[in-house]
């Protein structure tokens, strides 16, 4: 079977959890051919992953680099574009229940237009600017919190133009389309559905729209641009859920957002990430000094401050205790690493806390601790937790995303941003060898039962066949 796999900013150009998952999936199904369509930033990115033989093609769609080749549309082309643009703005400003349907229709018309004319060129014309300004600025209600300026019009047009770049590419050849993200990554998938009538599967590890809302808080845009663009993404994500034959979130917690955005409950099936048990055999021994181990990117979203503060409390109770942090900051985030070091020194645990950097074999990181800790503010279904569980190490983790589903009662789940709760949980485990052993063993058996890569692959293999055959599974309520 031919599977078109749509990614955004992940496989095969970047490392990270989603890319690991894509790689597992592709390698796990050598009998299927994968056509990868990757939304990238500029188009100069090189693949970071070695591609197996069944990756039949990789097409990069740059969102911010040079636009697709094509001249500005001629007079007829421009005349055809203006009503489409007008309808897009109207749909985005529409508060009535018909707005989502209007948005879906106009997006499809824009796709048909983009297959014949240069959509980017059409967005850059004076007529488009004037029409957009008339509809958006001059009609924005007097009570609106902030009115758009012509500069906002320029910004909004650019954002829409770049976001819709995927519509100008030829639809990928496939029997089933698998978008491994919602949002912009769903656009190239929709083109395949619209052109060839192929069914669509949407997988989300996080929640695209939630991340965009958080991202927009830090964005440089004025409120009207932010509001318009978030509405666009909101409609797009909702459309992705509506058009999908099947939605496969990486955890049950995410289904709340999906249903909120209009996903039909019977189309949602949770499929958990998995690891290869052969890579993570159980450990026989524990380190000598009581040790807490942490694995991940050194990044503010991992909330290492709370972890370090919690460890300072642990250290007061157990002066021998050590904290070992495995991982490095992504480029440009070195400042956060320094901040964490300073905090540890300030709290008097600078000596007991070690920043180990990247490890060659990730198992060593889990082996280094009596307890493996996760202090993140946001997660999908973190590999570090299920890998530690497979090794038989008990976890203490914050209650975010799918963490509670992964750990259940085989570790301790605590609220995020709460150093006291985190340290209490660590102390309970560090002081009780019996409990550690028992939880470690149950964690391992839970992981082997539910979170193996073979299960994930088998599930998708089965889903591909059934979805391609039009046998859309009727799952009860997305509880996997």
């Amino acid at each position, binding site marked *: 079977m031919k599977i078109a796999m749509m990614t955004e900013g992940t496989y095969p150009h970047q490392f990270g959890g989603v890319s690991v998952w894509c790689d597992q999936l592709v390698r796990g199904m050598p009998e299927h051919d994968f056509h990868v369509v990757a939304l990238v930033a500029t188009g100069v990115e090189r693949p970071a992953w070695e591609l197996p033989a069944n990756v039949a093609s990789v097409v990069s769609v740059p969102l911010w680099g040079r636009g697709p080749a094509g001249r500005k549309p001629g007079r007829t082309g421009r005349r055809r574009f203006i009503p489409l643009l007008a309808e897009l703005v109207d749909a985005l400003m*529409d*508060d*009535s*229940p018909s*707005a*989502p349907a209007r948005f879906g229709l106009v997006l499809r018309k824009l796709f048909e237009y983009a297959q014949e004319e240069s959509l980017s060129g059409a967005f*850059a*014309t*004076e007529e488009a*600017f*004037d029409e957009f*300004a*008339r509809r958006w*600025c*001059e009609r924005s209600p007097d009570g609106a*919190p*902030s*009115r*758009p*300026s*012509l*500069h*906002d*019009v*320029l910004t909004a047009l*650019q954002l829409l133009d770049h976001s819709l770049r995927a519509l100008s590419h030829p639809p990928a050849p496939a029997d089933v389309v698998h978008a491994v993200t919602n949002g912009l990554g769903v656009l190239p998938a929709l083109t395949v559905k619209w052109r060839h009538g192929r069914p669509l599967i949407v997988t989300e590890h996080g929640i695209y*729209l*939630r*991340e965009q*809302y*958080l991202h*927009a*808080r830090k*964005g*440089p*845009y*004025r*409120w009207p641009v*932010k509001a318009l663009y*978030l*509405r666009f993404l*909101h409609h797009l994500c*909702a459309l992705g*859920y509506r058009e999908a034959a099947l939605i496969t979130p990486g955890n049950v*917690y995410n289904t*709340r957002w999906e*249903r*909120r*955005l*209009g*996903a039909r409950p019977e189309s949602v099936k949770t499929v958990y990430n998995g690891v290869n048990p052969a890579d993570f055999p159980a450990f026989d021994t524990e380190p000598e000094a009581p040790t807490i181990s942490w694995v991940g990117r050194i990044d503010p979203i991992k909330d290492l401050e709370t972890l370090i503060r919690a460890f300072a409390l642990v250290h007061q109770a157990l002066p021998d205790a050590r904290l070992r942090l495995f991982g490095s900051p992504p480029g440009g985030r070195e400042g956060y690493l320094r901040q964490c070091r300073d905090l540890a020194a300030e709290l008097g645990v600078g000596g007991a806390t070690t920043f180990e950097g990247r490890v060659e074999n990730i198992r060593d990181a889990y082996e280094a601790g009596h307890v493996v800790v996760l202090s993140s*503010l*946001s997660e999908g279904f973190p590999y570090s937790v299920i890998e530690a569980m497979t090794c038989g190490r008990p976890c203490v983790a*914050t*209650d*975010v995303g799918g963490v509670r589903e992964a750990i259940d009662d085989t570790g301790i789940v605590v*609220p*995020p*941003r*709460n150093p006291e709760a985190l340290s209490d949980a660590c102390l309970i485990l560090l002081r009780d060898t019996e409990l550690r052993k028992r939880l470690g063993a149950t964690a391992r058996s839970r992981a082997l039962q539910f979170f193996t890569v073979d299960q994930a692959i088998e599930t998708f293999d089965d889903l591909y066949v059934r979805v391609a055959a039009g046998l859309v599974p009727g799952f009860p309520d997305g509880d996997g």
Partner: protein
Amino acid sequence: MSAGTLSGLQQPVVTGALLDTPHAAPAPDGVDELCEQLAEVCGSATDPLEIAASLEFDGLNDQAVQAKYGFPDVFALAEEMHRRVPVRPVEPESPPDPWRQGFGRPALHGLLYSLPAVCFPAATGLLGGPGAITVLLVSMLASWSGSQGLAHLGYLRLGRGEDAGTKQVLRWGMLVLLAGVAGAVWVAGTITSARTPAMAFAVGQGLYLLSATVLMVLRAERLLLVVLAPGCLAGTGFLLLGKPSGLALATACALAATPLLGAAFALWLTRGGARLALSGNEVLAAVPSAAFGLLAALLIAFPVVPGWGAGGSGVNPGALLAAIPLSLSMGVAEWTLYWYRRRCARLLRGTGRVGEFRRRSALILLAALAQYLTATVVLVAAVVAGAVALDLVDPQWTSAPQVVAYLALGGAMFLALLLQTMGCRLVPLVACGVAFAAEFAARGLGVPAQLAATGGLLLFLTLYAAAVLCKAIRHG
């Protein structure tokens, strides 16, 4: 049905839990306190989901919301918060204004464009004999067009952040163009049997212009003051002392030092460039700039040439007097250009109406043109007054029409420059070409031909710029 519709989100479903919450009485439910903590998020939220995302990011989940606030889930709590906190978005910090510019740089540029003029009167000894004016003119035309093209290539690469590539293109561009200028001077000199000192001076002029271009692109204008120092100081001193023949050789050496120093600085600043082949597209993109440089040089120099333009048999003093302030005024042009862009950028952020932008940006354009012309009139007056005070010239009122013609040319050059920076490159180029062709064809008519050509050019470019630049999309 669909919780996914926007309307569904913006007219939140009132749940049982919400009905139990007394809306009128705040405080006790703890939601107000939460609203205060998240004041920034709530005040700029575009819909309740934005608040929900923040609540979850802060670690609240459905269980915690039920236990702490009595709402069924995070979404219901977010809806209540969105209802309670009015949206009053804070304007984001405005980005640094790219068109902000003091007087210093443009003034320095104006000075740098016009200072070399001091060298010419001092060099009259070198410029004797047949063909001297011709070789000077050939060198000027070749090096103006060459340096405009080179500057375009340099800025193109700088804009792409290729520092090493910029250095390389500037270094080799300068050397290749120098060879071209020297070749052109040699051919012209041989045909007109010009003397070697005149040809050497002409090549020196070309070398100075090319190396000055390199220094300007690399933003090393201040070095240019050092470069100009020997030539200008020696030239001025030589003139003030009444051109003593004993100092002629020393002055010539000082004059030669200026282009050589410029070339040395240019070579030094462009060391360590990386080999980066020049693409055909890059060269093609530089052609309009080079052509514009050539046309500008023709329009300025043509009337000065004795027996060719409107000047009669000798070098026309009126034309010369106007041409010098014109190069000074390019500093004013630069400053005014930034002023115009700054005002238009502010207008773009200040209005949401296309019609209003059209009207007001046209007024800004006219104001910019008036500003440039006024400043240039003042410069011309100052230069003439200075020259009269030093007894260098004896101005006659009959020169006035030609001064006006140059003023019009200055205004046209300013508009052409402005249009080029806004991406309209072809029309100003063609217009300048037509103007020069007209001036050349009617050269027998003298000053009126020049006046008609430059005045017509100014009028056309004003109308064209007003029509094109009032489109807001051009200012993006």
